[in-house]
């Protein structure tokens, strides 16, 4: 049985490793975990994007960097007693490597695939990755720059329309559009995702515009929103506090906090968060 009023899953988290660009990587990771406990996060679903720019670009991670990052992430999640679950992050430009990493990742306990900005979301290179993710019954969390109107340095950023096109081609795969507060015009993405049921959104990102949550609820719907924090947990907490004033029912609030994540991620991915029952999918308030 889930604690429906207090359970909280962070569907978009990141960690650093000894191989990334921060000498304070352990402090950074510990700070995330401490803040998560204070906020009430029971599970961080996390990835590491290569070396975070140390030895190859964050959004164009070399295969070696990404393998090393995934290895660290799988081990870190495995040792966390369920506080952390892993995405397997891949660079789709190395498709064979990406597919082998996905296979290796799910064998090691990963529960989703992370795609960042190595290739536009509607590029044909992503189709095979999407098909394989569906075979694992797992979602793809995809980085998005909302309403991209020009190229930005160091990334082949996708916007909502790019990801929507992929989601429409790959209807058997579930996609999470990353961070509605992560930069750009989120209202463009709300429109782009309209009516695409296999495309949900996470609430993370540093942006905390007044009106952002209200519009997401109105235009996307509570069944397609997941609470998350990405790399700014303060804004995650702010959105969590604000949601309590958004006029949502208890069920709707629980759906955003954790229920939709239980539905979107593979069956049983969060079984360890249930107090009594192993089969938690049916416990989702929206499932």
């Amino acid at each position, binding site marked *: 049985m889930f604690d429906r009023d207090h359970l909280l899953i962070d569907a978009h988290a990141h960690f650093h490793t000894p191989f990334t660009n921060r000498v304070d990587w352990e402090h*950074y990771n510990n*700070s*995330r975990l401490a803040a998560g406990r204070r906020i009430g996060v029971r599970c961080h679903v996390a990835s590491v994007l290569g070396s975070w720019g140390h030895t190859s670009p964050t959004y164009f991670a070399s295969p070696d960097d990404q393998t090393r990052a995934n290895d660290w992430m799988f081990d870190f999640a495995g040792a966390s007693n369920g506080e952390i679950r892993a995405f397997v992050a891949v660079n789709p430009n190395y498709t064979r490597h990406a597919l082998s990493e996905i296979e290796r990742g799910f064998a090691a306990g990963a529960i989703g695939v992370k795609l960042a900005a190595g290739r536009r979301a509607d590029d044909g290179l992503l189709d095979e990755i999407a098909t394989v993710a569906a075979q694992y019954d797992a979602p793809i969390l995809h980085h998005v720059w*909302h309403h991209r109107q020009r190229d930005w340095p160091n990334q082949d950023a996708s916007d909502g329309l790019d990801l929507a096109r992929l989601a429409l081609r790959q209807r058997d795969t579930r996609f999470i559009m990353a961070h509605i507060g992560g930069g*750009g015009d989120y209202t463009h993405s709300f429109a782009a995702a309209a009516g695409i049921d296999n495309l949900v959104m996470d609430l993370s990102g540093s942006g905390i515009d007044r009106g952002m949550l209200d519009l997401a609820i109105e235009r996307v719907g509570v069944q397609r929103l997941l609470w998350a924090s990405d790399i700014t*947990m*303060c804004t995650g*907490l702010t959105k969590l506090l604000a949601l309590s004033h958004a006029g949502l029912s208890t069920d709707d609030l629980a759906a955003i906090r954790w229920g939709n994540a239980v539905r979107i991620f593979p069956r049983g991915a969060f079984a360890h968060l249930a107090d009594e029952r192993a089969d938690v999918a049916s416990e989702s308030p929206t499932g």
Partner: protein
Amino acid sequence: MTLDSSGPGPVDVCSWIGGYPFREIPHPEAAILARVVLPREGFSGAWVGHLPGAFQRDPASSNEALLKSIESYRDILEPAPIVRPDWPGWLATLTWAVEHGAPAVRIYPAQWGMVAENPRLRELALACGELGLALHVTVRFEDLRQRHFMDVASDVSAALLRGIARIPGSRCHLVVSGAGRELIEETHWGLTPEEQSRVWYDFNWLWGPPEDSFAHLVRTLGAPRLTWSSYWPLRLAQQCRSLTTLLPDDLLANGAVESLADGRIIASSARSAGVAGSATSNRQDV
């Protein structure tokens, strides 16, 4: 200064009423701010600006609208009108602000195309210091990544902020909203200790964990240099509460939250430093 019920809550130094030209913002009315948002979030008051005026040339109508809109809520809302120092009659506007109980006046140098060496800004800062008014600068309204294509103003620079704080003989109390860690550090560490003591930074746009910029600045600048705000209605009003909630245990135990500044503290200091009436003695209102 805390948001809990142990005493009067902080006075918010940065909120507005009125619409925003580049996107829809729900409920920018004074009544909502005064009777719903501030009490709910634990603020005991707010310095309020009129948002449309930031994008208009002549601030007079905006200032009149501000006073009219908040007149029923003066128990909790204090006006922070716009004073544009390159506009004829600006010194009269400053006096008008004092007469109407303003604790601060707001400037938007990025929207006005003013740069660091602008002599009009220096005149205004000196006059604010003498009249006991705080001078409030908005570094940005929105994140750079989401701005409307017609919103071409840059962020306010650290050079401009340092320029205001460094004016010889100034008593101006400068309040900076919308700044991130880098801008704050570039400003603060580029000032003498005396100059630093007259500048406060709204911490609404700092990051908490895991980056921990807010905790870093509490440790290095000190909590008394950092001040509460709501940034309503552009941002969710809970952000400062989130940031303080997530401070590391040692800072919480050492009273960091109680040591943060707010509008009440800054306004009191500005009034004490000012000498009412002297500003008009040797300045030309042109």
